């Protein structure tokens, strides 16, 4: 299943990116080669010796929208810079200005250094001392936006994945160390004895008094209490214990699928830390709606894991099957 989903994600991405780019090409969405008429306002008058001058750029809403056939409305004015060198004049929208589409896309695919949008100025020079100047900006041509975007996203998130994995090291080390003490001192065993009657029906393959029961309980409790940072190492350790019972190491057993399903349904009594960070105290009023939803979805997850496990194709691939 994961093979198809994964392959599908990649192939579909390519198709969508290609279709999007071809559509942009056909509709000339970015009006490559056409200049955008702008009005430049100088606060202290135009200075023909200054290398750079702070200015304001005003876009005529009607002209803008008919040029780009866009429904986005430009703001009344934008901060900008006029730069003059021997090679000519260039207008820049200031860093981080909130530009309308498609200017925002033109900026993100042409701006090399930061978040500014630069265009060469065509047309005659303004008179010295002028306060206002009507001219036009010529942007670099924009092509294959989506194709570049998916490649960029792939590279960026490959790095993100490594960052995430490395950020887990500390928590993993802490919890794996604590769990080793729990194992050596007998706490884990006590926990197993206490909870295995409850968990037995869900994990029938796990033998009596196996440490996996204790770890599953710790993992689920950490989840319930909204302690995501502790839940992940505990869940990984529980998976490792289940793996010791697995005769086919590269294939998930029914118990592993069950543990995973229970984790994705994420039994949560206390809202996750991230949600509290986003919503602050407003999260309190959601206590019961989250509790009810999460309990229902846990029941569905358990039922789905149990029932799907009975399907012929999943029975055939069951590492624990005795045939």
């Amino acid at each position, binding site marked *: 299943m994961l093979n198809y989903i994964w392959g599908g994600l990649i192939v579909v991405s390519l198709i969508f990116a290609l279709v999007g780019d071809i559509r942009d090409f056909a509709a000339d969405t970015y009006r490559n080669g056409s200049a955008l008429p702008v009005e430049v306002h100088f606060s202290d008058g135009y200075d023909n010796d200054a290398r750079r001058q702070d200015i304001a750029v005003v876009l005529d809403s009607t002209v803008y929208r008919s040029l780009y056939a866009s429904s986005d409305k430009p703001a009344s004015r934008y901060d900008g810079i006029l730069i003059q060198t021997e090679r000519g004049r260039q207008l820049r929208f200031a860093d981080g200005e909130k530009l309308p589409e498609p200017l925002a896309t033109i900026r993100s695919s042409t701006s090399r250094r930061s978040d500014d949008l630069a265009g060469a100025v065509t047309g005659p020079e303004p008179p010295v001392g002028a306060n206002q100047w009507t001219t036009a900006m010529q942007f670099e041509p924009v092509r294959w936006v989506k194709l570049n975007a998916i490649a960029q996203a792939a590279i960026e998130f490959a790095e993100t994945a490594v960052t995430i*994995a490395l950020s887990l090291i500390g*928590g993993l080390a802490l919890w*794996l160390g604590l769990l080793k003490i729990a194992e050596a001192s007998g706490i884990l065993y006590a926990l197993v004895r206490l909870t295995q009657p409850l968990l037995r029906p869900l994990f029938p393959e796990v033998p009596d008094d196996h440490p996996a029961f204790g770890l599953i309980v710790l993992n689920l409790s950490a989840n319930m209490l909204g302690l995501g940072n502790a839940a992940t190492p505990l869940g990984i350790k529980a*998976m490792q214990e289940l793996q010791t019972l697995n005769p086919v190491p590269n294939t998930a057993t029914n118990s592993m699928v069950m543990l995973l399903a229970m984790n994705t349904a994420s039994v949560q009594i206390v809202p996750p830390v991230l949600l509290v960070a986003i919503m602050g105290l*407003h999260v309190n009023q959601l206590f019961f709606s989250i509790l009810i939803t999460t309990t229902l979805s846990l029941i569905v997850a358990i039922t789905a894991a149990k029932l799907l496990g009975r399907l012929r194709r999943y029975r055939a691939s069951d590492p624990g099957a005795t045939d």
Partner: protein
Amino acid sequence: MNILRLIIDYAAAFVLPLIIVGFPLYGMIRKVRVYEVFVEGAKEGFNVAITIIPYLVAILFAIAMFRASGALEFLIDGLRPVLSWINIPAEVIPMGIVRPLTGSGSAAIVLDMISQYGEDSILVKMAATMFGSTETTFYVIAVYFGAVHVRKTRHAVPAGLIADIFAMFAAVYVVLLLFG
């Protein structure tokens, strides 16, 4: 009901310090050489994290491409008429679809919706309930199965997704029931 909340809040605040101190303390009482045993267990942390990397890279980059290509928006737009037919507001559909795919993406959606509709709006309540009551299924699969080198995931993905889809509907109806 408020007492129940109070108990849970206290449990959440105390359980971590209690475990982190309690395990070694109990170990000392039982004459375990706690420092040596701790280090022995902790040294595995690095290996586990490294083991996860290939699985996590595979999942995250594919999902990132899917989002960047515009396919995700297309999916959301396509599902909108179908889902609004069964009373799911169009505004919360992005959340339902993004939630199993990316944690940071769905957090961004909650933030965006708060700025658009306000924290007390019923739409934000629905989206936040979805966020709080399910997990990033594909991330969990990559991390948990990656750590033990499981590549054939069998019915884990369908079971997780069924629970996610159910949770999306449940969140909408539960919020309507409680606040609507």
